[in-house]
């Protein structure tokens, strides 16, 4: 991960994922504002529809990647002792993996 997600490579990945996340969030907010889901079934049906579920399935790894590059930068900037740095980096990585798995399982249960 560190070699792949460092320097220009990371910068590029962060920006590409940012564009996708930005569009997705704008569309999601607009849809929730214009047509608020009436009940569970309407909400579940909307999320389970092919386009939206694929959109979410793509959003989760993009978000994890984007957050990883950003949080890694923050930790490298402010945490200097090597032990603490490694601890914080691994905590952040595990947290992101756990959160992504949680959201993906919620999505997977629908189908």
């Amino acid at each position, binding site marked *: 991960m560190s070699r792949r997600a460092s320097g220009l490579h990371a910068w590029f990945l962060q*920006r590409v994922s940012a564009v996708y996340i*930005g569009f997705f969030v704008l569309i999601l907010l607009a849809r929730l*504002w214009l047509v608020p889901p009436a009940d*569970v079934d309407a909400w579940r049906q909307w999320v389970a529809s092919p386009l939206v579920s694929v959109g979410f399935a793509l959003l989760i790894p993009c978000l994890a990647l984007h*957050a990883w590059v950003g949080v890694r930068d923050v930790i490298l900037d402010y945490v200097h002792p090597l032990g603490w740095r490694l601890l914080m980096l691994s905590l952040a990585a595990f947290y992101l993996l756990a*959160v992504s798995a949680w959201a993906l399982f*919620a*999505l997977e249960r*629908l189908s």
Partner: protein
Amino acid sequence: MWRRCRRARAFRWENEFPARSDGGCYTHAMHAKKRPVFLSLPRIHLPVAGVASILHRVSGVVLFLSLSAASGLFSLSLQDPAGWRAFQAVLYGWPGRVGLMLVLWALLHHLFAGIRHLLLDLHIGLDRPLYRYSAWGVLIAAPVVALWLGVLL
């Protein structure tokens, strides 16, 4: 010409960082215990773009921390009718509403400042007046839209 520059005390690297008598270099000095501190916080007036930039980082950390709540609530809302009701109870209770507003602000600030940074990467808006106005725009638009959405949703 050269003399005039010297008399005017122009910035010269050697004057600011003279060679150290112990032969060490400044990079190492930064890791030593007696670390030179050049920052005087009360004397630093961060420009608007700097404020927008540091808040971009702060909002990113807020969003990172809110990811667990976000995926938990997402999962809860999709579970079953009981989960949906619990999700709505959280969303319409006042702690949930305050949390939602905060996360919405972080999301919108991160989004707007991110769009601004992407445009800057494309060399759009690099010049002074626009560079500042766009930073003000981000700083003002994020809380306004967050309040508006938080009341509406």
